[in-house]
């Protein structure tokens, strides 16, 4: 699953990738006419909305692409770079940039495109921008508090609005199309031409507007790949196919006492429940996350058998099915809940009066098992925790 760097493509190639995507970026900017300063500022006087058209089309195209790739589980949106939100500095910096835009006639990317084809004002702008950045560095101590104020981290717009990601994508796409029509009208009026945006070739225009909307709607109504997989799994499980193998509490305790290193015990409840109580040696992967590619290697270790348990046997079975779906054939599900396991071993273990031999054996075994499991857990706690693969967010932005 993407991003391809660093897992699939080595980070060493990152600079080469930068050069290549930069090439595409520069080519697209120049082709769009962004090397022309009068075309750029046309947006602010109404005679040329090229900037808005190119900018919004690019933004919406990339956004729909990101949502689509994530829907198909081809891109992990949890780790891609999301610009952090610091509202005071973002708004102030943005307005200063706006002033720079209207006075200088460029933004940094477009000034480079202009400079590349020989525009002297492009070079002047680059020189100015470098001085401006230097000036910021010099006065940074004075601005530091303001710069760092209001940190909200990688905040997402749809979370702020409290709506689904795909709903936000639909709204933004619709807004963009509306803006294209409206600015098309304004542009013609300002240039004193007959308004032509809604006339002529309207079929082509409708199709062009319908394609992005259709893609977004399609993402909206179809289940994501994860949902699809889970539905298929549940259907198969309900049909009696692919029954997970079960393990009972005493057997698990016995195995942990004697050869715990052969077992990979996984608690699929929430981290809070896990903190409260977990079976000795268990690690915590909430059921919802189990599907993630980050855990695939962990689930497919050849020398270890996975044992899943949860707040209900059904949860454990589901986890077991997920593991099986991803190629692990030896996974087991605990046939009792975490709570039952706790009561069985750490609760009161009474030996009835006149016990049968087997009752006595079981009770004694459970007492010994509880001791031993505590011991194992204590030993493991003092050792290094098992190496967990940590997937970190990509660093990006303009630094």
């Amino acid at each position: 699953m993407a991003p391809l760097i660093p897992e699939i493509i080595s980070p060493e190639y990152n600079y080469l990738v930068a050069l290549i995507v930069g090439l595409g970026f520069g080519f697209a900017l120049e082709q769009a006419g962004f090397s022309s300063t009068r075309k750029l500022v046309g947006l602010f006087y109404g005679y040329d909305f090229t900037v808005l058209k190119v900018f919004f089309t690019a933004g919406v195209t990339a956004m729909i692409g990101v949502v689509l790739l994530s829907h198909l589980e081809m891109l992990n949106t949890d780790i891609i770079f999301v610009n952090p939100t610091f509202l005071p500095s973002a708004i102030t910096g943005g307005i200063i940039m706006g002033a720079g835009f209207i006075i200088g006639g460029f933004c940094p990317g477009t000034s480079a495109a202009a400079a590349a084809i020989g525009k002297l004002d492009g070079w002047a702008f680059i020189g100015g921008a470098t001085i401006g950045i230097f000036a910021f560095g010099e006065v940074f101590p004075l601005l530091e508090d303001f710069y760092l104020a209001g940190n909200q981290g990688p905040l997402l717009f749809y979370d702020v609005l409290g709506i689904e990601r795909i709903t936000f994508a639909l709204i933004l796409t619709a807004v963009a199309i509306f803006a294209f029509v409206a600015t098309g009208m304004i542009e013609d009026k300002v240039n004193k031409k007959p308004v032509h945006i809604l006339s002529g070739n309207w079929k082509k225009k409708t199709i062009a507007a319908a394609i992005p909307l259709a893609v977004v709607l399609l993402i909206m109504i179809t289940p994501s790949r994860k949902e699809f997989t889970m539905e298929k799994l549940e259907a198969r499980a309900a049909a009696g196919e692919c029954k997970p193998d079960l393990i009972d509490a005493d057997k698990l305790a016995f195995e942990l006492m004697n050869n715990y290193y052969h077992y990979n015990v996984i608690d699929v409840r929430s981290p809070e429940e896990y903190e409260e109580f977990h079976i000795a040696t268990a690690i915590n992967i909430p059921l919802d996350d189990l599907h993630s590619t980050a855990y695939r290697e962990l689930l497919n270790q050849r020398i270890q058998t996975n044992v899943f348990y949860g707040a209900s046997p059904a949860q454990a079975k589901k986890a077991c099915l997920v593991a099986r779906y991803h190629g692990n054939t030896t996974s087991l599900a605990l046939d009792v809940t975490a709570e039952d396991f706790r009561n069985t071993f750490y609760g009161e273990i009474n030996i009835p009066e006149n016990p049968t031999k087997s009752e006595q054996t079981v009770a004694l075994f459970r007492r010994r098992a509880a001791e031993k499991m505590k011991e194992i857990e204590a030993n493991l706690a003092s050792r290094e925790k098992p190496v967990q693969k940590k997937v970190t967010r990509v660093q990006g932005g303009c630094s």
Partner: protein
Amino acid sequence: MDQKNKFMNPYLAGVLLGFVLLATIYITGRGLGASGAMKSVAVTTVKATSPDHYESTAYYQDYAADHPDGPMKSWLVFEMLGVLIGAFLSGALSGRLGLKLEKGPGVTNTTRIIGAIIGGMLFGFGSQLGRGCTSGSALSGMAVMSFGGIITMFAIFGGAYALAWFFRKLWITR
């Protein structure tokens, strides 16, 4: 204007740019940028001309810590080299190369150059305060639906619109 010099249809160019951005996110997990490369140039200049100041200023030292191989060994520097090459190729293909100065009808060359420098200074300064420019913050931020990125976008365009009337002599009136 003859056919050869014509710009691409803006929507087509937008889709092309969108796919470049999407490919960047897909491959590297990060978006595009521009002002960061100019920061590398600024920091390199400081380092070369006044090493003492460079060593004693926390701002540059923070930057050095993020770029252990030197300020020019940065993703955005390589990306911007690509931009220069890509734009040059595009200009060459469409016959737009040549030393030129573009300006409003009522301004002199000197005014235009001074305007570009001052505008650049403001944009450079603002991009540092706002953590990215039109490319790194607004465009890439929109692609990943970042709240801060989209707010910055509105602030840039809103700021420019609000000030457009005051600077109309630079662009549209004589």
